[in-house]
Structures are given as structure tokens and as C-alpha cells.
């Protein structure tokens, strides 16, 4: 990733901070709200692949950790694992199908991210989240991921300058730059 691309990704992260802290934190459904930082990590894995995607997700996670009171580095760890997993899944042949793959990965990423966060939190001695609430959080985060992943992927794709999103390139018969 070039220096210019890094600056563009940093700008995207700054906008995400404003959107998350100013708007999405207030959109509470059943005690849970969308996680734009996790959406960005999923988008990074989809667009940039497992390696670069995980690096971007790490940076996104550290920024996200500034605004919560859970152990610093916990979001970064979870986002790295999610982005890497998404990147690996996207690099498989099945990942070349159109939008439905991206939406499925976003849903799975939201649920996996929520469960990973809770699991690692418990290992670190944080209070246990009641099971009923964990289900609601996983559902809300997963659905929000599905809603937000397409615009997030488009923005991330432009920021990293990888050309058209891979699934679009596959549909049109073109090839996405990596």
C-alpha cells in the first residue's frame, strides 16, 4: 500500500470515528448498536486480502479502542482475526461470486467478531455478558454489517486504489488490481 493510500485509509478511519461516535452509538436496538469499525475491518479483508486487510484492521482496531473502556488492544486483536479470516475466505474460488458472497461474509464477520470479543473478554477477566444480550448484539452487529458492507467496501476500494471491487470485476469479466 502506498503512502497516499495510507493517508486515504486514515481519512476513512477518521470519518468512521465521527459516524460511529456521533450517530451509530445512538442507534440502539435492544441494547446494541452497529459497529462501523468492524464493518471497516471486514471491508479491508474483502478488498485488500488477508495480509494488508489485517494490517488495516489492526490500525482500525487501535483507533476503536480509544473510544471504549474495554482492555486496550482487544478490538485490534478481534478485528485482525476477522479481517484475516474474511481475506482468506475472499481469496477462495467461492469468493468470486457476486454480492451475495460479500453480504454473507459481512454477516458471518459480524457474528464471529461479537463472539470472539466476548470470548477473549472472558479470558481477560471482564464481566460476562448475559447470553440473551450476546445474541441480540451478534444479531444487530451482523445485520448492520450486511447493510453497511457494500458502501464500506466501495469506499475502502477507492482508498486503497485497488480498482473496481473484485466481485464486480468478476461479474464484468475484468480483473481487479491487487
Amino acid at each position, binding site marked *: 500500500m502506498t503512502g497516499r493510500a495510507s493517508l486515504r485509509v486514515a481519512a476513512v478511519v477518521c470519518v468512521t470515528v465521527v459516524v460511529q461516535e456521533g450517530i451509530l*452509538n445512538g442507534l440502539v436496538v435492544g441494547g446494541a448498536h452497529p459497529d462501523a469499525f468492524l464493518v471497516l475491518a471486514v471491508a479491508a479483508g474483502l478488498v485488500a486480502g488477508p495480509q494488508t486487510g489485517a494490517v488495516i484492521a489492526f490500525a482500525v482496531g487501535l483507533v476503536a479502542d480509544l473510544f471504549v473502556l474495554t482492555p486496550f488492544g482487544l478490538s485490534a486483536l478481534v478485528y485482525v482475526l476477522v479481517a484475516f479470516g474474511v481475506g482468506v475466505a475472499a481469496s477462495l474460488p467461492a469468493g468470486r461470486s457476486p454480492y451475495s458472497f460479500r453480504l454473507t461474509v459481512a454477516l458471518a464477520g459480524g457474528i464471529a467478531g461479537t463472539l470472539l470479543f466476548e470470548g477473549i473478554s472472558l479470558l481477560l477477566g471482564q464481566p460476562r*455478558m448475559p447470553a440473551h444480550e450476546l445474541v441480540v448484539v451478534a444479531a444487530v452487529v451482523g445485520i448492520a454489517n450486511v447493510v453497511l458492507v457494500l458502501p464500506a467496501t466501495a469506499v475502502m476500494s477507492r482508498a486503497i486504489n485497488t480498482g473496481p471491487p473484485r466481485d464486480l470485476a468478476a461479474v464484468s469479466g475484468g480483473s481487479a488490481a491487487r
Partner: protein
Amino acid sequence: MSTTRRNTSQRLTLAILILLSVTAITLDYRGEASRAIRSIRNGARDAVSPIQRVLADALHPIGDLFSGAVNYGDAVRENEQLRGELGALRREALENETAEHQLQEILNEQNLPYVQNIPQLLAEVISGPSSNFQDTFEIDRGTSSGVGVAMPVVAGPGLVGTVISAGSGTSVVQAITDPGSSFGVSFGTPTSVAVAYGRGTGYPLYLANVTADVQVSVGEAVYSSGIAGAALPAGIPVGTVSSWHYSGGALTKTVFVTPVADLSGLNYVTVLQWFPAP
């Protein structure tokens, strides 16, 4: 060959990133580094707070609408209860309902009867919970206004939480429903004491250490206990007993308490400038 090299490179990157994350977590658990991280977090929150204030002012009415839509069933039931009381109180429609609503919320925070002589500070809620894993919210007052960690926060009818992090211009409040929240309460006649634990957003508090011989009745008021060394001053309304259960032969009763304050739609709160005894 190239695929193998690429896979190795990917795994190495993943291992390094995991190591860095674990290092950050470890540093957060250590004294000096933890303090530095806390001040960086407070600085980040303070930096974003002006934008949050603007967005909070603009989005509160929309948030109320959204909340009303999501909690439609509760709203309908509540509406039926209030309909009978509204007749005597009906008055001319106000030109600016939003402004009047906010004014009323602020007025509700004045002259709270249970506060007694504890200094108090009005604050606006500028952000909901930043993490789905903690039931917290952010207010627009910090150490520069006299807010400190461990101060109780109330809204209208009773307790809503305690300050757990304070920057210069903003603070984070842990709601009483957070699973990590616990504090002493008293209830009943003769007075009994117990420990109240949060069980998550929208769920009643759980009272622990209520022995089998203690008389409990549904609807009974529960207050902060304020016994020596308590984290909260005495007499702040916490909630009412919503249900209790006793299995024959058990040493304790299971008691649940519904918070008296509506934690789902907070726009303004009052910080009580009171510190627990050291």
C-alpha cells in the same frame, strides 16, 4: 512455490499483529502504561466531543422518534396508563415541542428531592454506549467542571449510574444495568441490605445476599444503602422490586428490581459531586 511463500508471509504478518495486540492488552493492565493509555483515551474523547455535541443536539429528536418506533409495544401500554391522567393536564399545543421537551427534561433535573445538600451538576448525554459490551454513555462534563471518577449520576426519579472515566471536557458513565455494575442497596421495613448487580440493558437488576427470612413484596422501593464505605450516598431511589422467587430450603431469595429511571432515553442527567469515603 510463490503461493507457499505468500501463505508464509500472511501467517507471519498475522502472528506479528496478534503479538502486537496482546502486547497492547498487557500494557493496559500495567500501572504506568495504563495511566498513559487512559489519558490518551480521555484526550481522544475530548477531541471528538464538539462534533458529538453538535450531532447530539441535531439527532436527539430523531433518536427519540427511533426509540419510540423500536419500543412501540411499551409506548402503547404506557400511553394507555397516562391517557387518564392527561385530561387535567392538557394545554395548548406548544409552538416548538422539541425545545419545550428539552426544557422540561432540564427542569426535571432541578430540585431533586433525594439529593439533599450534595452539590449537583447538570450534564447532557452526548453519546450512547461506545461498546456493545459495556452499558455506558458519555456526558458533556468533565474534570474541568468538577466531575470525578466514582461520582453518582441520577436522572429525574433516581439513580442511573456512576462516572467511571473523566476527561477534561467529557466523562463516561457506567449505567447501573451494566453487567460490571454492583452497589449496596436497602429496602423494606425493617430495613434490609443487599448488593444490586446489573444484568444488561433492558433487564432488571439482580439483588444478591437477600436471606430467606427477609420479607420482600413486589413494588417495594429500593434505595442506595449508603452504609459505611459505600460507593453511593444513602437514600437515592434505585428502583422497585419487580419479582422475587424462593425455592424451599434455599438460604437466599432471588429478587429482581426494575430501575426507577428510564435508562433507554436519557438526554440530560445530574452528576452528584459526592465521593465515596476512602
